[in-house]
């Protein structure tokens, strides 16, 4: 029975509110219909990218014929197994086409010898972004064109296109099949598309860049017509059918939800939802972004492009096909814009009973809400009378893998296991990331209650992530109870939502996948990286006396993690390269998480024991223990508390959070919980008095609370976080509240001396200052985010003195480029006589052409002692500082 029929029955009774919900549900059904796992295509294979050029593959069975064999599962691809999909071909041969280090000239040189449609992906030095370099046919005027690849939080897309992909491979695979914003589809080199086995592909990959000049890069016997999309094959237009192929379904036709395929293999990533494709292009056309040629044919003529055959819209889209109608028009009751309340709604879900927000089908927020409700619902004990029916099919979806015949029954696993779906949800939505920013999904993450993790072990705790946020701090337990009584969804909605999250549960974010891969690699002693990590872990376990202090030990661990991160990011040990799977601004975050998993996780117990030993040895453990007793007996006022304090219940809650904190190995997650505690304290202070409090009032209350919790281990926890947290996180709230917690603990430690004064001892303040200096100076290679994109350059000319200008200089701009820029800005006629110098510590250094001024600046800034330095653009030979400079010049010039 289709859930939608059920829905319509219920609708009669429940009015428009549920009508909306039903609309969401059915939309979700449709959405799911379009969501197919790319892994299916990975396993079962796809046709070659350009069937028309591939004579030997033209016996490609027509999809409808296949259906019979494919059976009710509707996949039709099983018989194709053994064939290599485009994605396979791309994955195996990335050393050939993925050439991030290639310059524009080199790329042009290679591509010019290639037929139209052949491409390379490289990184543009100018834009510091990846670009797709595409060989154009002669009638296009230019031999090649570059398309910028946009990377947002978790996705890759071509600039101007609304379709996002989880990684670069899927992006390229898609554009081998559908041109979207390209003038025509991409083409794989003949040798790659003709290869029949993985071994053949590997052989080609071995050639790397040399592939292009080698004999392997042979041309097909009779070259195919260049860039025209293949002719229609009678059943459905060629490109469209191929689009279907990459989706893993052979044809998009309307199906009822019950017909949907519910196979839940791991890690599908690429979803191309034609519905969104269409809708979004309309958004684009209306919005300020570059209009897509498809929606504005007028503009299309500006760019030369081959005549259409664009993928015709699938049948489900016929509703929206009319270009005159905006998405809103065609979907009554679906507000197109999400106001700020979107976030609010997501957030409040975690706090108090709310009416279900109006659906926003095109926005991630609505899915997230739906997801979150679904999860909350499943977390509740059964007993609504609807549950038994819903309970069926849990087994299938909980396991994640086996396809369920009837997807209306698919539902997420309850309570403790209910988290994967959330991640799946985020994953899936961000994969599309069609029309909203990623903030919604972040918001969602934050609003996720933590209670599911309680009593759980590290392995699941590690997956929690989020940022400090008001909503995060809301006590989840309370909200769950209250919702229980008033937040009731009709069963059909629940089943729909469950069905959806069941689908989500099978996806893993590229991030998690990467973390997992690195963790696996770290256990493999056959790899350099694995050796490094394993040796380091055993080194620490075996060399207890190597470290002189707790700080020293934690510092070396932090240093090791940072260095190994650099190693992974810069060596070729990760294959395919991490840049092709993770957007660049996320690489560090992902690597950091991986480091926690492969280094801190195995070391956690040891490190804690060591820290305790150090503190026992230096007496601070005993001191803290005694003083904790002392402080506990004081009343709040004696500790300088003049604000309401948390009652026993709240203290208990805080204690639970601290205990959870102890279980985690990731310093980031520990800090998250610390922030929650702090937030809870603030909330108590403010709720019980109705006024706002500042930091001055907060510290005494925090001290009081910590004393009440009576947990000696907190000292170790704080130290662990302070030293191991990623330096980039020290600047935010995390760093601030860590400092507060450290301060509170030292107030307790020094309780007697300070006579309950609210002030930190000067010693404590010194320690904190040193800590901050050390930790912020510790960053051996500052990340791109650290420095601003501006460089102050002084222009020194004999006679006319000094003038300064602030120039826009991006991190990876070389001195050579800065010199050019200076020549322009300072209107220098003979730039070859000038150069960029660094004046620091009273000495001049002429900067070599290939150095990066911003990196040098960042390095100078990160030194423990502040240095006065100037970047000066001046003549190379005539120098006002005479001798000093002459010497420096001689020494520094490359010999």
């Amino acid at each position: 029975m289709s859930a939608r029929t059920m829905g319509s029955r219920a609708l009669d009774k429940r009015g428009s509110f549920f009508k909306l919900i039903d609309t969401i549900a059915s939309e979700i059904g449709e959405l799911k219909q379009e969501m197919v796992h790319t892994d299916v295509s990975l396993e079962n294979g796809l046709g070659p990218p350009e069937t028309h050029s591939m004579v030997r593959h033209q016996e490609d069975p027509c999809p409808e014929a296949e259906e019979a064999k494919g059976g009710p599962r509707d996949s039709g691809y099983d018989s194709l197994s053994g064939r290599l999909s485009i994605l396979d071909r791309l994955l195996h041969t990335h050393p050939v086409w993925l050439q991030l280090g290639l310059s524009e000239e080199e790329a042009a040189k290679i591509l010019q010898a290639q037929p139209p449609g052949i491409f390379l992906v490289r990184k543009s030095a100018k834009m510091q972004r990846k670009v797709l370099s595409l060989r154009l046919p002669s009638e296009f005027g230019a031999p090649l064109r570059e398309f910028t690849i946009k990377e947002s939080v978790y996705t890759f897309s071509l600039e101007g296109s609304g379709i996002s992909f989880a990684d670069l491979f899927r992006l390229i695979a898609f554009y081998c099949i559908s041109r979207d914003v390209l003038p025509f589809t991409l083409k794989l080199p003949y040798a790659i598309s003709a290869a029949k086995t993985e071994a053949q592909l590997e052989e080609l990959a071995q050639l790397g860049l040399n592939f292009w000049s080698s004999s392997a890069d042979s041309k097909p016997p009779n070259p195919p017509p260049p860039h025209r999309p293949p002719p229609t094959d009678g059943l459905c237009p060629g490109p469209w059918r191929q689009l279907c192929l990459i989706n893993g379904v052979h044809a998009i036709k309307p199906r009822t939800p019950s017909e949907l395929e519910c196979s839940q293999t791991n890690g599908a990533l690429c979803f191309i939802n034609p519905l969104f494709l269409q809708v979004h292009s309309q958004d684009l056309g209306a919005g300020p972004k570059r209009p897509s040629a498809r929606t504005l044919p007028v503009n299309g003529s500006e760019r030369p492009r081959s005549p259409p055959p664009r993928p015709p819209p699938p049948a489900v889209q016929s509703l929206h096909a009319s270009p005159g109608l905006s998405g809103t028009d065609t979907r009554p009751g679906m507000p197109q814009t999400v106001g700020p309340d979107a976030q609010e709604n997501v957030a409040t879900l975690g706090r108090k009973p709310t009416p279900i927000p109006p659906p926003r089908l095109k926005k991630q927020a609505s899915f997230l809400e739906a997801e979150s409700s679904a999860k909350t619902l499943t977390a509740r004990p059964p007993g609504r009378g609807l549950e038994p029916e819903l309970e069926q099919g849990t087994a299938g979806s909980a396991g994640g893998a086996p396809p369920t015949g009837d997807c209306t029954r698919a539902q997420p696993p309850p309570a403790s296991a209910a988290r994967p779906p959330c991640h799946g949800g985020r994953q899936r939505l961000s994969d599309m990331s069609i029309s909203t920013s990623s903030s919604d999904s972040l918001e969602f993450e934050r609003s996720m209650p933590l209670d599911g993790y309680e009593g759980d072990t590290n392995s699941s705790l590690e997956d929690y992530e989020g940022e400090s946020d008001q909503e995060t701090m809301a006590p989840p337990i309370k909200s769950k109870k209250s919702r229980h009584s008033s937040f009731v969804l009709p069963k059909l909605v629940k089943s729909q939502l469950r069905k959806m999250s069941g689908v989500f549960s099978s996806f893993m974010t590229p991030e998690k996948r990467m973390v997992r891969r690195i963790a696996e690699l770290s256990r493999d002693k056959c790899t350099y990286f694995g050796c490094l990590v394993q040796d380091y872990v055993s080194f620490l376990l075996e060399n207890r006396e190597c470290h002189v202090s707790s700080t020293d030990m934690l510092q070396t661990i932090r240093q090791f993690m940072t260095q190994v991160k650099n190693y992974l990011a810069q060596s070729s040990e990760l294959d395919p390269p991490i840049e092709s799977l993770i957007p660049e601004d996320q690489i560090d975050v992902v690597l950091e998480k991986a480091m926690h998993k492969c280094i801190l996780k195995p070391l956690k117990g040891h490190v804690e024991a060591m820290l305790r030993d150090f503190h026992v040895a230096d007496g601070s453990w005993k001191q803290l223990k005694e003083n904790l007793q002392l402080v506990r007996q004081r009343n709040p006022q004696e500790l300088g508390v003049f604000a309401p304090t948390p009652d026993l219940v709240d203290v208990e809650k805080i204690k639970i959070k601290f205990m959870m904190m102890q279980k985690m190995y990731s310093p980031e997650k520990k800090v998250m919980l610390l922030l929650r505690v702090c937030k809870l304290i603030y909330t108590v202070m403010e709720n019980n008095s109705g006024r706002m409090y500042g930091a001055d009032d907060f510290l005494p209350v925090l001290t009081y609370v910590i004393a009440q919790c009576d947990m000696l281990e907190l000292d170790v926890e704080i130290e662990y976080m302070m030293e191991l947290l990623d330096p980039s996180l020290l600047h935010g709230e995390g760093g601030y509240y860590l400092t507060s917690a450290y301060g509170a603990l030292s107030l307790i430690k020094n309780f007697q001396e300070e006579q309950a004064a609210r002030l930190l001892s000067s010693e404590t303040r010194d320690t904190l200052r040193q800590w901050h200096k050390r930790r912020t100076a510790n960053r051996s290679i500052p990340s791109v985010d650290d420095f601003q994109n501006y460089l102050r350059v002084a222009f020194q000319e004999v006679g006319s003195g000094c003038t300064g200008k602030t120039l826009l200089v991006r991190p990876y701009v070389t001195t050579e480029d800065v010199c050019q820029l200076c020549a322009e800005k300072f209107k220098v006629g003979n730039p070859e006589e000038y150069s960029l110098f660094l004046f620091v510590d009273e000495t001049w250094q002429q900067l070599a052409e290939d150095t990066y001024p911003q990196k040098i600046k960042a390095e100078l800034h990160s030194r423990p002692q502040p240095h006065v330095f100037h970047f000066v653009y001046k003549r190379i030979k005539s120098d006002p500082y005479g001798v000093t400079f002459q010497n420096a010049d001689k020494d520094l010039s490359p010999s």
Partner: protein
Amino acid sequence: MAIRELKVCLLGDTGVGKSSIVCRFVQDHFDHNISPTIGASFMTKTVPCGNELHKFLIWDTAGQERFHSLAPMYYRGSAAAVIVYDITKQDSFHTLKKWVKELKEHGPENIVMAIAGNKCDLSDIREVSLKDAKDYAESIGAIVVETSAKNAINVEELFQGISRQIPPLDPHEKGNNGVICIHGGKPPAQTRRCC
């Protein structure tokens, strides 16, 4: 041009200038008050060599004795080791010999050894003569060069020397000596270089 990755580690007594050499080589920069390395630090630099690009993956290890047992982690997979001493400190030359011994015993079989006598800008207070260093280097089949990270003397040459010593690589075989040939291609002609 094909890129080849070469893992290199720096060894030597504390304070001889290992990090400064790396910093000069990678960033062409010299820091007067560099703090002692804890554990190890990692940097990379790519330089052309013949018809290839050599990407140096450099592990700069801590010289302090207490970190000594960390060093094998880094040299074990290395294609080359740069062992640094301070020409103004005889002791550091002794430490260098200990490192060479350790490498011979526990290091990879074909590891390229390069000896760098750093701080050659301070040759007026020299304690180790260039001849001693050269004789020793010859006896162990290592490259030797006197460097000044402060004044950028011979730092690039040191690494160029290493490049030339890297044994040729069969393009179909993934190097297990810290040499990974990413993009295949022919190895450069081998020329022995001594300064």
